[in-house]
C-alpha cells in the first residue's frame, strides 16, 4: 500500500497536499487544515483506502515556528484500516491565532473524546464539535498544560497556604 495511498491523496487533493514522508515504514501525509473533513471523509470512504478506524488524535506544540511566522501547532490523526490492514499518519499545521480546525467527529465518532482531550491540554478549538468541554482538567483551570510554555513544575494551591514557610530558612 503506502506510496499508492499517498499518491491517491495527492491526486484527489492537489491544492491541499503539502508533503509526504516515510519513517520506519510509516507514512506521514501533511495537508492543509482547511478541508480536513473532506479529506477525512475521502480517506474513510474510498474502498481502496478504507481508513475506518481512528486510532488517535493528538497535537504537538512548536513555539519556535510561531516566531518565524510559521504554524505553531501540529494536529496529528493516526488512522488505521481494519479491512485493509494499513496505517497512515495524517498531519496538519495550525497557526496560533485563531487556533481552530474543523472537527472530524462526523467522520469518526472516536474523535469525540480524542478531540476534547486535545482541546483541554493544548487549547486547539474544534469547530462543529458536539460537546467541546475540558475533559481531564476542571472547567475553571487556567491555561493548557501541554503547551511548551506551561511549566512542568509550578506553584499550586499548596503555595497559597499561609502557615507553610515560603522561603528557605536563612542559615
Amino acid at each position, binding site marked *: 500500500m503506502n506510496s499508492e495511498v499517498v499518491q491517491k491523496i495527492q491526486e484527489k487533493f492537489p491544492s491541499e497536499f503539502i508533503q509526504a514522508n516515510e*519513517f*520506519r515504514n*510509516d507514512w*506521514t501525509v501533511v495537508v492543509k487544515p482547511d478541508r480536513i473533513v473532506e479529506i477525512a471523509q475521502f480517506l474513510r470512504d474510498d474502498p481502496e483506502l478504507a481508513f*475506518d*478506524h*481512528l*486510532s*488517535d488524535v*493528538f497535537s*504537538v*506544540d512548536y513555539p519556535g515556528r510561531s516566531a518565524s511566522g510559521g504554524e505553531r501547532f501540529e494536529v*496529528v490523526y*493516526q488512522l*488505521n484500516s*481494519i479491512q485493509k*490492514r494499513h*496505517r497512515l*499518519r495524517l498531519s496538519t499545521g495550525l497557526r496560533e491565532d485563531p487556533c481552530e480546525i474543523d472537527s472530524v467527529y462526523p467522520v*469518526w*465518532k*472516536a474523535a*469525540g*473524546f*480524542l478531540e476534547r*482531550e486535545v482541546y483541554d*491540554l493544548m487549547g486547539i478549538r474544534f469547530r462543529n464539535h458536539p460537546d467541546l468541554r*475540558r*475533559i*481531564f*482538567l*476542571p472547567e475553571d483551570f487556567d491555561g493548557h*498544560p*501541554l503547551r511548551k510554555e*506551561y511549566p*512542568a513544575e509550578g506553584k499550586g494551591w499548596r503555595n497559597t497556604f499561609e502557615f507553610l514557610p515560603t522561603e528557605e530558612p536563612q542559615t
Partner: protein
Amino acid sequence: MEFHTRQEKAQEEAIDANPASLNDSEPRPITEDLPLRRSEDLLLNMGPQHPATHGVLRVVLELEGEKIIKATPDLGYLHRGVEKLCEGLTYQQVIPHTDRLDYICSMTNNFAYVRAVEKLLGVSIPERGEYVRTIIAEMQRIVGHLFWLGTQALDIGAMTVFFWTFREREVLLDLFEQVCGARLTMNYFRIGGVNGDLSPEVILRLRKFLKEFPSKIDEYDRLLLNNRIWISRTKDIAVISAEDAVDFGLTGPVLRGSGVYYDIRKAEPYAAYGKVEWDVPLGSKGDTYDRYWVRMQEMKQSARIIAQCLDQLPEGPILTDVPQVVAPPKEKVMQDMQSLIHHFIIFTEGFRPPKGEVYCATEAPKGELGFSIVSDGGPKPYRLKIRSPSFVHLGAFDHMARGYMIADIVTIFGTYDIVMGECDR
C-alpha cells in the same frame, strides 16, 4: 434542573395569580388536561467514589424512571499529567511511569512503550528476548483478564468468582516477583530487551501452572454459566454493533466481542507471536456476554501461546548489543573502568534517537495501547502521546448505556475492563 412536577407548578401559578384563593375553604379542582401520573426526568450523580467504577470516575445520568436517557462520563480525577512529565525525562526514565498507567497490567505498558522507542531507534531484539517478552506479556494478559473476571462478577453480584480468580492471579504475581522482584509495578522491560532472564525454577513453576490452568477456566465457567442471574444480567446488555464499534474506535476484546477480526498480534505480528499457533476468538452479538466469552477464550489462547513459547525458547542473550542504548552488565560495571563510564553516560545523559515521529500499537489486555513519540533528536521525547484503550472506550459509553436500566451501569463499566489510571493518565 427543575424538581417541580407540572401539576404543582400550575397550582403555584394559580396561587401567585390570586393569593386570596389560599383562604378558600373549598379544595381547588384539578385541571383535567394535566396528567395525574407524576413524570419527571431525574439527574443522578454516580461516583466519583463508587466501588463499581474501578477507580475514580463520575457519571452524570439522566434518567426516566430507571431507564437511562443519557450518560455523561466525567473523567480526570486521576489525571497526573504523565505526558507532560515525560517531556522532561530521558527515554529510560519514562519506563517506570508507564507502570502507573494501567496498574493492573504494568508489564504490557512497559512492553508497549519500549516497543515504540525501539521502533524509533530501529533496534532489533535477540530471539530469546522476544520469546521472554511474549511469555511475560501473555502472563500479564491472563492476570488482567482474571482481574477483570473477578471484579466484573463481583459487580454483578457473584462474589465467589472473585476469590477463585485471585487465587490463580496470585500464582502468576508470585512468578512475576521471582522474575523481576515486584508484583504490580514491574519496571521489567528495558529498551533493547528485558531486565532479567527466566530462571529454570520460574519455567518449572510456569509449566505447572499452565497444566492446571485450563481446568480452572472451566471451573469459572461452571460457576457462571449455570447462574441465571449472571446470564440475564449479561446477555443482550450493552450491545454494540460491529460498525459502531469500529466507528467509536473500540479495540481489543470489546471490538472482537462484536465480531470484528482485529488483533494487532495477528495483523502486525511482533515479538514471537508470528512463530506460535493460536486463534483469535470472536463474539457475534456484541453484548456483555460475548465479551465475557471472548476474554475467557483469550485466556486459554494465552496459555497456549506461553506453552509453545516455553517449548521453543532458544538460548542466547536477552538484551540487544547496541552500546549506545543498552547499559553494560552490572558485573562489568563493578570491575571495569570503561564500563563504569559507559553506564554513567547512559544513565545521566541518556541516548539520542534520530529525529522523527513514530506510532507503535501493542495489543494490551484492554485493547490497542499505542505510544506516539515525536523526537527532535534530543535525549528526551519532544512529545509523547499515550493512546490508552480505556479512554477511547469511554467515548462510546453514552452510546452503549442509553436505554438500559440504571442497574446495568455497573455491568457496562465492567465490560470495558476500564482502569482509570490509564484513562486519565
